[in-house]
């Protein structure tokens, strides 16, 4: 049977063979990367629960990832809430449903836009920085130096970043939720002429506990993804400036794609 397959393959034209070869290599490469990332994730999680821990580094990462991302996430949420109010108003006036603006703003922001946009913004700001920093440490042998100083690089570099990312992003998103709703409120009251009292009542009435909580769980998952991708690509960075540059690009691109993919899966889990 195998011989027959091989013989029939031999008769395939060269171009078809090339396509098969390229496809096969791509698929194999994809699964190899998935395996490596899974191994890296397992190793990182294994070190989370085993001492020694580095609380000082964890707090510094919380500051870097959480506090310093606040302006970026805050501005993104503010303008998103404002645009959402404007867009939904202009759309809904076509069928006299202007009163739904408050509901659309609060549900869109808490369920989707705040976690996803915050995740993508943090991927650009934090994921890239982590990959560049750890990649440079790899290239300049600082990671080898950690090993020679009896310090496990996973515990020292990866665990504090991944933990801080997973815990800080929900906090950022919670603040982003408030700012986003506030952005919609400002536009609705001062541009679209809504009554402040009824806008806030509508917002409060439509909002359910699960709308906010699902967004925060998503944020935790996105924080984990962003920091893990930054660490993975930095840790496995190629040599030289080009290697570090490529690691940074891969970190941002892979984190962004994984955020959008996992957003779909999590939405399906929470709301279907």
């Amino acid at each position: 049977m195998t011989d027959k397959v091989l013989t029939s393959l031999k008769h395939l034209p060269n171009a078809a063979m090339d396509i098969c070869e390229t496809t096969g290599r791509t698929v194999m490469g994809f699964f190899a990367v998935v395996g490596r990332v899974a191994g890296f994730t397992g190793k990182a999680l294994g070190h989370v629960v085993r001492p020694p821990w580095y609380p000082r580094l964890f707090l510094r990462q919380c500051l870097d990832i959480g506090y310093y991302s606040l302006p970026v996430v805050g501005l993104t949420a503010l303008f998103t809430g404002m645009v959402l109010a404007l867009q939904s108003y202009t759309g809904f006036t076509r069928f006299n449903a202007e009163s739904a603006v408050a509901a659309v703003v609060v549900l869109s922001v808490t369920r989707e836009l705040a976690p996803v946009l915050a995740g993508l913004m943090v991927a650009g700001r934090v994921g890239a920085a982590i990959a560049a920093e750890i990649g440079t440490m790899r290239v300049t042998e600082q990671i080898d130096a950690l090993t020679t100083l009896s310090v496990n690089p996973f515990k020292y570099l990866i665990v504090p970043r991944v933990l801080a990312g997973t815990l800080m992003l929900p906090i950022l998103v919670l603040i982003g939720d408030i700012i986003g709703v506030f952005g919609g409120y400002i536009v609705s009251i001062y541009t679209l002429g809504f009554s402040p009292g009824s806008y806030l009542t509508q917002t409060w009435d439509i909002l359910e506990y699960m709308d906010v909580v699902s967004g925060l769980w998503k944020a935790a998952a996105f924080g984990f993804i962003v920091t893990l991708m930054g660490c993975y690509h930095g840790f496995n960075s190629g040599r030289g400036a080009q290697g570090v540059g490529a690691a940074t690009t891969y970190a941002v691109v892979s984190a962004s794609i994984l955020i959008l993919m996992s957003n779909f899966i999590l939405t399906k889990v929470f709301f279907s």
Partner: protein
Amino acid sequence: MIEMTNVKKAFGPKVVLDGVDLKVGKGQSLVIIGGSGSGKSVTLKCVLGILKATSGSIKVDGKETSKMDSQEHHKMMNRFGMLFQGAALFDSLPVWENVAFGLIHAKKMNRKDAHDIALEKLSRVGLAPQVGDLHPAELSGGMQKRVGLARAIATTPEVIFFDEPTTGLDPIMADVINDLIVDSVKDLGATALTITHDMASARKIADHVAMIYEGKIIWHGSVHALDNSGNPFVDQFIHGRADGPITKNAAFKAA
């Protein structure tokens, strides 16, 4: 103390170490010489456990390193110190914390005591205490090497590894670093394993010299026997001649 037997290391199809046999006795200073790409750094990294040998045996005090669990490996690393080629200082930390890093994290010393020891080690390599508050990026190459040396000796290791300690330094600074290495190793009574292609450095640091070529140790002997090794590869290398068996082989391979 360190014994390598038939150690092989390959990266994919590329064989870098092709059966390295090497012994370093307690208190000895062995320098491995060899050209770029001959496998010097890989040898060192295999002993340190940064790279895993493909096959062969590496023993430290009679214990096989590949069979050590993480705690045993941790204990072994506590006895080692290492000076990296580019110093490999942590650029997010001030100089004093770089020097004290092993004391704080591996020896669990409190930061104040570690700080005092770091300043003492810095003065031992000729750096003022004020340097301790600077960051590595603010130092010259020679100063970074000194800080790297201070970090390597801070935990009073039994074995110190030096990876190209004088590369990239001017001849005077290179000699200063060589003197510091000799003094530090003598003071600690440590075993030293150095890799270099700087012959002036090798002659100053070494008790014994081994030459690595194409992943094999092709000569091993006392530093005093280096000039009369009777090995044409060693002769060409130590005199830096363009013509000889090393370049002849390289030309043959390129063709």
